[in-house]
């Protein structure tokens, strides 16, 4: 599956999701993945196909998981947790080699 867009979401799409977006960019750069658009938004703006992958905190999973593959963070600002889960996902999808 191609990975073109990652969308990070939270309640009003201002604070937490923005932070996660910055962290996702950091991790992607570290893993050497390029040409992926990363954005953040409110739960309202999420629909099926809005992105190839969603990232959110544990509190939002009930809303988001219905719309596509979703990385759920226990600790929303933990970069190590995000890196582990994101690189697992990317390996699974064959975006980066295992």
């Amino acid at each position, binding site marked *: 599956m191609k990975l073109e867009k990652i969308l990070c979401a939270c309640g009003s799409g201002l604070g937490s999701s923005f932070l996660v977006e910055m962290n996702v960019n950091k991790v992607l750069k570290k893993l050497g993945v390029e040409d992926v658009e990363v954005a953040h938004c409110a739960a*309202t703006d999420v629909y099926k196909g809005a992105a190839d992958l969603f990232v959110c*905190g544990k509190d939002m999973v009930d809303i988001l998981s219905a719309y596509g593959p979703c990385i759920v963070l226990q600790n929303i600002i933990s970069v190590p947790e995000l890196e582990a889960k994101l690189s697992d996902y990317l390996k699974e999808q064959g975006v980066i080699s295992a």
Partner: protein
Amino acid sequence: MEQFLNFLQQILSTPSILVGLIALIGLVAQKKPIEVVIKGTIKTILGFIVIGAGAGVLVGALNYFGNLFNFAFAVQGVVPNNEAIVSLALNTYAKDTAIIMALGMVANLLLARFSRMKYIFLTGHHTLYMAALIAVVLTVGGLESGSWQLYVGGSMLLGLTMVFFPAIAQKTMVKITGDDSIAFGHFGTLGYVFSAWIGSLVGKGSKSTEDIKFPKRLSFLRDTSVAISLTMFIFFVLVTFAAVIKPDFDATVLGGTHWFLFSIIQSLTFAAGVYVVLAGVRLVLAEIVPAFKGISEKIVPDAKPALDCPVVFPYAENAVLLGFLVSFAGGLVGLAILFALQGTLNPALILPGVIPHFFCGATSGVFGNATGGRRGAILGAFGHGLLITFLPAMLMPVMGSLGFANTTFSDADFTAVGILIGNIANFVKGTGLLAVCVGLFVLPIVYNVVAPKKAKS
């Protein structure tokens, strides 16, 4: 030449362009490639214009609501909503807000570097809202709009709030997250600290909320637009109905629409306005926050990032839901108390807005649970609900002409800072007020230099 200077002055006094310039400087300072600089600058300007457009949408619905409320109950009814009041404030104070926000972030860096409150406040939308509040109350207090006194005093005050509030929440944050590496940056802190304090009083031996099984279905309210639409609909139906049944009601107010349909459309129009404002805020912050984060990591590497309230939600999910419900109940009880005060103190009636009760109520539930288990979460969040009903009522009189808007700031720190500074401004105006701002800013730095340091273990 004169024409050119005139043109330059016009550019610098157009708020959206000014904010764009701030983003431009930030992007160039980070040595970003030219296409990123152009994109970021345009988006920031665009965002500011979008906020203004959103204000235009929601103010219509808000005016209908205010007029009907006043007609039906003969008292001012207020729906506290940060986005609504900020978008209104920006109509008049946009330039002041933009400059105070930019300089306020510099003041935050200075305090993090030179005082013992080593926090970098990264919740950008709250920085923007606090800047707007400070611009309003200081201007009402006689620091003229557009003057350097307003910029210096305002930015120092803003910088102080950006380290002070994370500092007072840190003790409980360590309890919640289990370590001391992140801080809490959301301007509802007084409510959370209040809740944590109540929790520590009543919570002895109470079990954690996380041992309860809770229905998850209320989580659809976490969708901001849905939540605002629903509550505004309920408010509109009640108020419009109360107005319509009065014998002297002038039906032309509703423009020939049936009152029920009118309520649906106006409540959703209000929610649409907030949605547009949020989109604008997102655009404005897109470049400013990462720049601030990057610069702060270079200048004060040992400072803790202070983050938005949902960072604590995953630590106690049941407390989140419980906190919202109980805080909302507190808001209803508070409303009843304000109603009972009519005829004596005549406060504005503060309706329980679902957004502050959801986000701030939830957070106060988490804080109360951390210090006092279930009992702490329930009583703490209830206290918080009362607090964010009474504080906005006390804020209205110091907001100048904006005190007559049918909306106001909702979260505890905005209202508390506004009340404090607004009332100080009743006694010391102009230069004296500037001196107070500077004094408050310098105090923690002087303390750091003078007071004995704790021996490091």
